């Protein structure tokens, strides 16, 4: 193997690596959890939950939802409430985002909230 071949193989290696990274990032699905499965050790990890809205607190900048499923309840915070202005109590939603700890309580900082509509 000469230097040129070695350089070519190195470039091919990086190119295949890029393809694998692309595949992994595009097919990565955020894992869905039952609310009771979310623990403090999971803070900063991405998670998806599906549940029913039990309470809504809306301010100009923040939307705070109390979401309940069969296993428990959790607060979902969204800083982009303009996308879901017609959200109502009792609706089933799918929330994706990062698990966070605020005032010793677990919550999800949502990147996206989808309603069952």
């Amino acid at each position, binding site marked *: *193997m*000469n*230097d*040129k*071949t*070695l*350089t070519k*193989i*190195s*470039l*091919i*290696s*990086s*190119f*295949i*690596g*890029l*393809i*694998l*990274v*692309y*595949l*992994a*990032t595009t*097919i*990565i*699905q955020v*894992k869905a959890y039952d609310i009771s499965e979310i623990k403090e*050790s*999971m803070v*900063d*990890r991405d998670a998806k939950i599906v549940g029913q809205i039990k309470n809504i607190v809306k301010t100009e900048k923040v939307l705070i939802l109390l979401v309940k499923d069969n296993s428990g309840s959790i607060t979902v915070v969204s800083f982009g409430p303009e996308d879901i202005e017609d959200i109502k109590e009792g609706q089933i939603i799918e929330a994706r985002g*990062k698990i966070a700890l605020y005032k010793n309580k677990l919550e999800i900082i949502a990147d996206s909230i989808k309603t069952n509509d």
Partner: protein
Amino acid sequence: MINIILAALIGSLLGVITGIIPGIHVNLLSAIIVVLGSLYLNIFDPLTISIFILSIAISHTFCKAIPATFLGVAEENTIFNLLPSQKMLIEGQGYEAVKLTIIGSLLGAFAIILVSPLLLISIDNIYSYVKNYIPYLLILSSLFLIYKEKNKMWALVIFILSGIFGILTFNVPNIKEVLLPMLSGLFGLSTILLSLKDKVKVPKQNINKDKIKDLNLHKSISIGLIASLLVGFLPGLGSAQGAAIATSVSKKNSNKTLLVILGSIDTIIMVMSIIAFYSIERARSGAIVAITRFIPQFDLNTIILFMGVTLIGAGVSAIITLYLTRFIANKIYKLNYRKIGIIVSIFIILLVAIVSGPLGLFILLISTIIGTLPIFLGVSRSQLMGCLIIPVIIYLL
């Protein structure tokens, strides 16, 4: 995706820097990254940090051949290539020696990724079968390596002496990164000090960009895979010893073949550690321990992502290491090797003093003295790995 690629590239560059600094082990660097974790967890997400660590580790496995070849400083995993690569350096073939380890590392990365589906399926079963026999396999491997020595009695003495030293050192309280003074003395400082005594003159190096002849890459990478499995399953066994056992199967192994094998082992083990953590939840390298502090569980997507990052890191590091080696090989004969040796020795002593404190310096002194014994007694330096193997055997029995 951009953050992942940037983390992979920056990590690879940092790995090159840590790789060429003698005495810096990737485990030490991983420990520093974990300690400083709270500072940048607010800026970067855990996945990006994990990719950064993995890229450093992969790149480090490529670049550490440079100091091992040109400065005679070895980590525990580069002991075995001390003789072949240094012999090549003295013959003016230092560039080719590093190039051979790069070829091994790069092809090793491809090979392990190709066989990873098989490992993902089988590693759990293999481990559950092997785990009860690990101490006995370690004893057998050690006896085999002693039996292979010309001077068997002295080899046994060095192995046991290193083991006693290892047990005592691991029981020293309140010391940070105890492996740093222990291994730096046994395999690093002792070699440099002896080279200072011998007044080594490094000749002008030949930069051979042409095809390297008589390379049996299929055989080398296959042996590298077998040796990596041995090292992966038997804690305490270094890649040098894994290679020694695996190469004993075939009678004729040239220095070139050995360097390709050694180059492949560290990279293969890094990827195997990822698979091992996914399958049996055992972190078999410092870098993986560090990664699991940020990502406590791997899923299949994480594995694919890490494989991709490994290949990116491998490609980038191979090119950088190749060009860096060319530059160093062109300059090394002009430099005063004795001065370099003194500077590196001072660097190691300072590093140990800062990281491990006064007790670390004492351990460094003792380990340096023990590290010189194999050279005087005509025994392979890999017998010094008794310092890890004997404590592991005692712990597991």
